């Protein structure tokens, strides 16, 4: 049960999301020497694609990326997977940046320039911990900081079954809908711009496609509001975006 049920290094996949080529290649070189399988993504969008398709065991993430910034990527990943170890490498030094990252669930934060040995040891440590966690609660449902249920008004979201109980009906929620609901709940009472919703909820960037967000809001209002035309929970904020408010929480 305990003991080293850690994956063999050769089976461990590490995704490096870093736009500076030299640094990315240097990291890949060293991690490969440790025996890990390594892939590089030179920007946020590719990074998210690789995360979804390749399913790495650990992600090394740079914060200053072109397009979507590193923090949005972190948040996007955390919406779906709270377990995946993420180590941030950043040139940013302000303590606020560090605190913000830890707030959003990063596992480790190293400033650039960093010591190579320290980096490798931290990576090893993170991977070891993950394997302990996995072997420890095999058979239990993975714990989420969201808990099993969330109630607002007459609605209840069941995160385990991805189902919403509302207005006497039961709705099966899609993965994207769950993600968005989690995002709103985690930020209840705080306004979210369409752009941020797109970046964090979908991992998109760019000026188009904010209509996607609007369509989802229309759907949520239809599901959860007593009167979709006078929303109590999913409110619009003129020229800012949307805000989820739950007075009972």
């Amino acid at each position: 049960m305990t003991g080293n049920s850690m994956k063999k290094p050769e089976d461990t996949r590490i995704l490096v999301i870093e736009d500076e080529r030299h640094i990315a290649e240097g990291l890949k070189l060293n991690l490969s020497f440790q025996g890990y399988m390594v892939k590089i993504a030179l920007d946020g969008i590719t990074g998210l694609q690789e995360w979804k398709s390749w399913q790495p065991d650990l992600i090394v993430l740079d914060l200053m990326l072109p397009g979507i910034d590193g923090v949005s990527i972190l948040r996007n990943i955390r919406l779906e997977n709270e377990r995946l170890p993420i180590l941030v490498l950043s040139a940013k030094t302000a303590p606020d940046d560090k605190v913000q990252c830890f707030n959003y669930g990063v596992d480790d934060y190293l400033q650039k320039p960093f010591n190579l040995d320290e980096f490798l040891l931290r990576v090893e440590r993170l991977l070891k911990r993950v394997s302990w966690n996995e072997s420890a609660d095999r058979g239990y449902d993975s714990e989420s900081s969201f808990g099993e249920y969330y109630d607002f008004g007459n609605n209840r979201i069941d995160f385990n079954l991805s189902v919403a109980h509302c207005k006497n009906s039961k709705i099966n929620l899609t993965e994207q809908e769950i993600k968005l609901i989690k995002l709103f709940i985690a930020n209840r009472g705080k306004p979210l711009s369409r752009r941020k919703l797109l970046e964090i909820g979908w991992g998109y960037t760019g000026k188009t496609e904010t209509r996607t967000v609007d369509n989802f809001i229309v759907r949520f209002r239809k599901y959860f509001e007593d009167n979709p035309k006078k929303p109590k929970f999913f409110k619009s904020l003129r020229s800012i975006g949307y805000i989820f408010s739950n007075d009972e929480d």
Partner: protein
Amino acid sequence: MSRSKIFYPIIILIFSVAALATSLFLYIYWYLAVSEGLNTVVKNFKLDKRQVLEPQTWIVILVLSILVGFIIICIIIIFVYNQKNLRLYRMQHNFINNFTHELKTPVTSLKLYLETFLKYQLSREEQEKYIGYMLQDAARLTGNISRILNLAQIEGKSYREESVITDLVELTRLFLQNNQHLFQDSEITIHNHSEKRVLYSIKLGLYEILLMNLLTNAIKYNRSGKPTVDISFEHERSSLLIKFADNGIGIEKTNLKKIFKKFYQIGQPENMSAKGTGIGLYMADNIARIHKGRIRAESGGDGKGSVFTLILPYFSQ
């Protein structure tokens, strides 16, 4: 700067203007009341109007309004100036962040490879490849340091360089040749339709900085597979025009003049869509002015490339 500090000037502005407007209104109102009272007194006591101060109501109102209006305009000017300073401060803050990143990144790379070399025995071939990277990083650092030093000099007007009369076409060609390694993935062509030499009295060092800034920008802000820049030399009336046309991401109309401002960068500071230091074009503008010329930007818009035109006046040389 915390939010409360940002709100302060706006609130002060609103209150001052409101107070002034109210006081103007009150001045006029009380003045009218007083002159009415005076008129009543004159009538009641059947005094000669000419013995009492003849109120020139309209002149008074006019003068008061002009003065108060002037004060309000001055207050607004001070407010606008304050906002500009705030913006400059913010941009300077961004510049420092960006510049720190520009310095830290090559240093991180150097450190990483040096530590790797210590740790592992690599083949000569691999060593050469990574040493090549390290040399590029050293060059990047040097470039950044030069840029900031040049900026300090150009701004402090302590740039001491003599002008030399030389053929700019040939000078540009030499520059491209000497810096091939920087431009190897792009296509830069010089067009000189007149086929004649283009002689101009130029400060060589500054011209190189300008070329470097414009060309590295053209390559950096480019999403096509192969960045291309067409440099052309033209004459127009009494000026020499040097045009740099690229196939880059283009510039929106609202930004065409702003990009030459110090520290100005298009994009959000948080997500590094603005890479670099924000001083390249500011320097280019300064350099043009040192030569009594100007530099302008034109663009078809997003994705349609841009044309930077350096206008250098001919004096009787």
